[in-house]
Each structure stands twice: as C-alpha cells, then as structure tokens.
C-alpha cells in the first residue's frame, strides 16, 4: 500500500482522447518526494528542449503535493508545471484552494496532459470515471462563471474546478488558471491549457488517503496547530503587520497600505509616491475594502483566512488574495475601488495580477513616448481607468495592439522595436516582476532574484528577516526562540547584522553568509512545493510551524518513507538541480541571471559577480550556472550528466568550467519569432 500518495497518475492524451491510469514508482517518491519534484522528473524525461510551449508534445502537469489530502494544516497546493510561452523555461506555479486534495481523494497524485484537443473540451474526473467532454458552450466564458456552470450542469456542488478564461483560450502569455479563491498565475500556464484546448478540469473524489504511522502523524499535526495558535498570540515585534504573523501576506485584512503605496512603484514600475498615504485616502480605501468584503476565507484545511470574497455593487462576486489588491490600482495611478473592480474582470478573464497591469502601464508609457501612437489605440478613452479597461479587453481578445501586448512586455517590445525594450525594464528572464525599485543593493535579494527559477520573489524569499532590527538586543531576543534555523550559525549572522556601518548591506552578510541564507530560503520553498504545503505556513513567514526539523518526521510518519534532515536536504537539492538542468538544457546561462538593471540605484558589479560565483560553487554548479558532472553523479542524476555531455553542454574534461558553453542563449533567442503567432 502507498501512504500519503495514491500511487497513480492520470494521463490524458488530448490528441487521441486517450485516458490512462498509470501506477507510479515508489522509488521516485523517495528520490523526488512528489509535487514539484516528481513533476520535474517527468518534464525532464519527456519534454526535450526542442519542444516549445505550444507544441502538442509539451506537457501540462497538475501535481498534488505529497502530503495533500492528509490532515497536515495548509497542505493543499497544486503545483502546475509546463514549458512557459513567455520565458521558454520550465514554469511552475502553485495554486492553493481545494483542488489538489480533491484530486488525491479521486485517486490520483497527478494529472498529466499531453497533445492538443481540436475542439474546446473540459475534463470531468469523478473517482475512477474520467471523461473528456465538449466545452463549446463555455467558449469565452469567465473562469469563475465556467466553474459555476459546470458544477450545476454536472450536479456536483462539491466538485472543485480549475478553469481558464478568455485569456487562456487566446493564449495570452500571462494567462492564469483560476480555481475559486486561488490561481496558478505565473509563467503563462493558462495559455498552455488554452493551447491544449482544455477549458476546465472538474474533480470530485470520495476515496481514502492512507497514513503510514497514524498516531505519530496526528501528534505532528496537532503540534503544528498548537504552534499556529502560539504564533497568533505572539506576533513578531518590530516588523510591519503583514510580516508579523503567519499566512500569506494578509492583504485582505490589513487596511494600512502606507508601506506598499509609498515604497512600491506606480505606473510601469516607475514612480514612487512618497507622501501618498493620507488620512483621507486611508479612510476611503478602508471603506472600499470593508464594503466590498463579504467574508474572509481559507484554503482547504487551513485557519489562516488569507483570501476574501469580494462583492462590489453592480459586479459579480469573486474571490481574491494577496497583492493583486493593489497591482491594478498602482499600475493605473488610481484608487482601490478601481483596482478591485478591474480585478473582478481580470479574474474572470484569467490573467496574472502581477504581469497584466504592468503590460498595460507599459503600453501607455510607449504611447506617451511616441513609440506607439494614437493609431495603435483606436477609440481608446482618455482617462487612465478607461484606458486600462480598454487594454484589458484588447489583450484578452488579442485584438489590434492587444495581440502584441498579449505576449508580455519582453516580446511585445521586440515586436514593436523603436527602442521599446527600454520600457520593458522590470523583467527577470523575460518575466515581469513586482514593481520595486530600491536604493542600496541587498546581497540576499540579489542572489534570490538572479538565481531563482520560480520567477517570483514572494515564492523565493522568506524565513530570514528582510532587514536587521535596529538594536542588537532585539536581534538577540528574536533569536531566542528561533527554532526553525537549520544551523545555529544563522542566528549569529542575524545578530551581527546592522542597519549601518561595516556590518550592513551590501557587504554584510558577506558572500559566504549570503549564500548560506539564500540556500536555506530556497530549500524550504522547494520542500514546500514537493509536499504541497502553502508557503504561508512554511517558507515565507518568519518563524513558521513547518521547518527542516519537523518536515522529515511528517514525511516519515505520513508517507512511510525513511527520512531525516540530511536525506530531505539531499532530496530537495536533487530536484532543485533537476529544475536547473531543465532550464540549462533550454539555454539558460549565467548571463540570464540578473535582476532588472534599475532594481537598485547603487550596484556593485564586482560584489555581484562574487555572489554568483559563491552561490554557484555552493550549489555545485560551474561558472555558467551549469550543474557539474560531479554534482549530478553525486545526486544520482547521472542521466542528466550524460545528456549534458551528449549535447555538448558539459565537456568530459572541463566539467568545472563551462565558460565556453554560452551557445544556449541562441537557442532561446532563435525561437522568438516562431512562437509569437496569433491566438486561436
């Protein structure tokens, strides 16, 4: 018997309409855990680098985390993996909500989609019965609307539905997959779902998930609940409210937006408005939120209530969580009422709330600077809000200029030419980032931004305070009950960290410390993504209930796999390296690993190179960021090593210096023109 996981994947070939239930190998679970880990293994094995995002050979994998469906609080993530049309690299985006546990209860750990359906379909998975059904009546419908219609049509009020909106159908490069209060947004995976002709996936499951050591497992779960209660009563002093507690940043609860509105950039990530937050604005925005919000809501088996149901007068109800609250508002220089209203439309269309407003602000900036002209925007209203609505519709329909903008700022700028690339200034690896522009280089953030393959800083950062506390005694106090550190040395790193002077950024933490810190942060996110645990109770907040010391016990008692900290650390390193290998094989190299040039005003090129060198070395990668043969062999990834040698990515005698191997970039650039085709 398999524990925690079901031991089966559901494979659907959309071209042939073939449905198969495939038994998985428990050895893979031991090596790659589940979720992201085993997703990456499948992607490596079956999607070679020649395969493009919109090729039938691309896979779209919905992986439920290893512990999803067990009573582990907050363990509900679906990890969606594919090749991104925008970055052309591996995309993996997590969605919370209720879908992953339902898939497990239906008897599957993953749903693997291949091929392409000629006509629009939806999938209906009800335990052992799986159907591919005609979805022509749902074409053009909103994502939430679709879910409601399907639940009714199938008379399955308890089913969970993941659906795309018009943006996904029309293959917008930043289309999301929406699921109730959650979405998998980054990397354009909704476009891949649309390209495969799948409008929605309905899941209903009523079968058991087994636990290897029931009493031990329950004790661990109860321990987590106790710790959550403890942390509710003991917020971290000295940090802003959204960082003091647990959960995803509590944007639906918190009304004080001084920090975001005055420190994050407005428009196309350009303008800082230092004295924006006044008493009047605070009152107006609080009223907007309080009136719109009907209820705070949670994901499956979690008390944190990070999301909310929002009903604005005259608009259908929708659900939201996190920072999408402000992205449209700030992109359009408008107010919260506008932001929440347009987000309702954008959610139905199924768009990434980070990229979409930035693309629109980018378009308006090009217009302002005469790179685009009024002719490109026929009949566009004059006011900012009206323009945003106008652009939203053009983009999701791929009409006129919208067809170009639908590819995101990077590719749109290339197509537009005339120096437009200068305005696509806030990308990493072709992907739009949070609108932050800061002064002094922060070495920790530099490394996270540069080397992160999750593409979104909130899914890379965490655990370690974002800045030192002003007083040493406070830092010492913080360390007193800091049980989550993998090693005592992290406490000293923090205690010695000062706001000013020798021990301050950019040179403190030093290269070695910075590498250690980032390695820890990244490892915890990767573990979460394999287990299906929400980062909001683990890798993201300070002092979370899940950490490297109790995770091995969870895996052992839950899944019945022998586990200790060392083995878990190695497993995480193994599939983290595999993710890198997939991207290396697709052409990613050191020169792609850089934050936006203007992210910080004060840059330190020499230090930055040293940071990269140090981090690559710690990871067992060569100067180009390519995992070395030794590293690969040591992790049991010798098949990757062989492939790298065969492709000339590594050379037999120079596995330690890969400077010569910069060909990869050409692979990426070469493909630019092929994939910019119009939407279906």
């Amino acid at each position, binding site marked *: 018997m398999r524990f925690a996981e079901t031991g089966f994947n559901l494979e659907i070939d959309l071209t042939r309409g073939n449905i198969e239930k495939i038994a998985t190998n428990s050895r893979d679970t031991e090596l790659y855990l589940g979720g992201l880990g085993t997703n990456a293994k499948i992607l490596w094995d079956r999607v070679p680098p020649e395969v493009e995002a919109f090729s039938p050979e691309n896979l779209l994998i919905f992986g439920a985390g290893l512990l999803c469906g067990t*009573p582990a609080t907050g363990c509900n993530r679906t990890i969606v993996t594919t090749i991104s049309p925008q970055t052309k690299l591996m995309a993996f985006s997590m969605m919370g909500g209720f879908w992953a546990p339902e898939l497990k209860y239906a008897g599957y750990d993953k749903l693997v989609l291949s091929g392409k359906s000629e006509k629009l379909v939806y999938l209906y998975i009800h335990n052992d019965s799986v159907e591919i059904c005609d979805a022509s009546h749902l074409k053009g419908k909103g994502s939430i609307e679709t879910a409601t219609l399907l639940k009714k049509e199938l008379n399955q009020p308890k089913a969970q539905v993941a659906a795309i909106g018009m943006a996904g159908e029309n293959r917008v490069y930043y289309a999301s997959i929406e699921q109730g*209060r959650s979405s998998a947004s980054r990397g354009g995976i909704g476009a891949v779902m649309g390209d495969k002709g799948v409008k929605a996936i309905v899941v209903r499951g009523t079968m058991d*998930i087994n*636990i290897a050591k029931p009493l031990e497992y329950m004790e661990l779960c109860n321990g987590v609940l106790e710790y959550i209660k403890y942390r509710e009563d003991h917020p971290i002093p000295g940090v802003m409210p959204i960082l003091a507690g647990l959960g995803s940043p509590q944007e639906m609860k918190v009304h004080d937006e001084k920090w975001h509105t005055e420190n994050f950039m407005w428009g196309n990530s350009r303008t800082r408005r230092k004295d924006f937050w006044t008493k009047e604005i605070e009152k107006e925005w609080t009223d907007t939120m309080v009136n719109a919000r009907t209820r705070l809501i949670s994901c499956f088996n979690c*008390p944190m209530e990070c999301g909310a*149901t929002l009903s604005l007068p005259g608009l259908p109800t929708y659900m939201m969580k996190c920072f999408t609250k402000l992205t449209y508002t700030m992109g359009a220089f408008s107010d919260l009422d506008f932001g929440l209203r347009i987000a309702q439309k954008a959610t139905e269309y199924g768009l990434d709330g980070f990229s979409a407003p930035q693309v629109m602000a980018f378009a308006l900036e090009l217009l302002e600077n005469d790179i685009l002209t009024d002719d490109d925007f026929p009949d566009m209203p004059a006011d900012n809000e009206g323009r945003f609505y106008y652009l939203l519709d053009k983009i999701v329909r791929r009409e006129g200029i919208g067809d170009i903008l639908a590819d995101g700022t990077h590719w749109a700028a290339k197509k537009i030419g005339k120096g437009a690339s200068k305005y696509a200034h806030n990308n990493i690896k072709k992907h739009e980032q949070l609108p932050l522009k800061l002064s002094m280089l922060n070495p920790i953030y530099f490394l996270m931004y540069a080397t992160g393959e999750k593409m979104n800083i909130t899914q890379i950062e965490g655990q370690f305070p974002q800045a030192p506390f002003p007083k040493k005694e406070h830092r010492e106090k913080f360390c007193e009950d800091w049980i989550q550190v993998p090693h005592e040395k992290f406490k000293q790193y923090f205690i010695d960290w000062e706001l000013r002077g020798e021990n301050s950024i950019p040179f403190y933490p030093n290269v070695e410390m910075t590498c250690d810190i980032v390695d820890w942060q990244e490892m915890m996110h990767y573990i979460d993504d394999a287990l299906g645990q929400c980062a909001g109770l683990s890798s993201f907040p300070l002092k979370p209930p899940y950490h490297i010391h109790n995770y091995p016990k969870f895996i052992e008692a839950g899944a019945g796999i022998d586990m200790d900290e060392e083995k878990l650390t190695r497993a995480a390193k193994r599939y983290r390296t595999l993710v890198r290998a997939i991207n290396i094989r697709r052409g990613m190299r050191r020169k792609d690993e850089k934050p936006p040039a203007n992210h910080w005003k004060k840059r330190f090129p020499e230090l930055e190179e040293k940071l990269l060198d140090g981090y690559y070395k710690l990871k067992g990668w060569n100067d180009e960021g390519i995992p070395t043969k030794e590293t690969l062999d040591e992790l049991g990834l010798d098949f990757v090593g062989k492939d790298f040698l065969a492709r000339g990515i590594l050379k037999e005698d120079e596995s330690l210096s890969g400077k010569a191997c910069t060909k990869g970039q050409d692979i990426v650039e070469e493909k630019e023109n092929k994939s910019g085709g119009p939407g279906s």
Partner: protein
Amino acid sequence: MDNQVDQTSKIIKTIKIDIDKCNGCRACEVICSAFHAMPKYSSNNPARSRIRVIREPLRDVYVPVLAGEYTVSECAGRDKYTIDGKQYEECAFCRASCPSREEFKEPDSGLPLKCDMCEGEDEPLCVKWCLVDALTIEERQEKVEDLEQSLALEDLEIGLESLADKFGMDKIMDVLVRMNEKE
C-alpha cells in the same frame, strides 16, 4: 470528567455553530474522517466525515452541519430559509442522513453516518480543529434516565435499520444466520 458525574445526571454537550465565523476550510471534515478511520487516524476522506460544510462561496453560504439521525424516507414537505437576505437551499440545515442526498453516508457502502461527539476524546475534534471558533462547545448537566446502554446500541441499530431498508429484513436475517453458522 465524565466519570465523576453521578448516575442520574449526564453532561450534555452542545456544539454551537456560528456560520458568520466559518471560513469554509473544511478542517472539521478532515479531522472527523481521520478520527473515525479504522485504525484511528489511519486514513482521511472528508466524504466519510460526520460533519459537512455546505459551502457556496459566491453566495456567501457556509453551513457546517453535524450528522444526526438516519431517516428511511425523505420529507414530503420541505423548508426554504432566507436569512439576512441569503436564501438557503432546501435541506441546508437538516442533519438527517436521508435518501434524498449524498450527505452523511459512507461513500462505498452507503451506510448512514452519525456524529458521536468523538466518543472517547476529551473534546469533539471538529471543535478543537476549528481555530476560528465557528464551532464551539457548550456543556451542561442534565438529569437523565439510564441512557448509557441505549446510546451504545444506537449506532448498531441505525446501521441495521438502514441495511434492513436497503435489503429487507429477511435477507439480513438470512445473512446473520449464515454468519453464525460459519463461526
């Protein structure tokens, strides 16, 4: 605590449900199904839970319902409530394991489920796991007559009764006789 109660009185536990506080997380369903697995906590399946959260986020409907009595046939007349401007489905607040719906039945056997207040635990586990206090417990002492025995038998009776409805009493008796002979 229960042991100290004198024989003629008993602690009556009431689970109070505050639907305004419910966030729809279904932790209550998770823990209930885990607790009633055999052996305890060995499996999870909210479909086996004795509490169900009727959840319609877009209409802001959140109703945790604890499984009550088994009923042979569905009601002929039903109620529809409108509270605070929200209309609730027929049967929304009903606790019965009833032929008219999927709620409160074992998914494979179809046998009815009933909340047993987590017999043997210090407190009902759904209450313990609902950290947001949508479920809370209220206890009071009440005089009762010799209920102990009948409570213990109640589960068995409910099960048998539903089997009898499904297969007919004669069949059940047949099977019992055969089972007896085998032993």
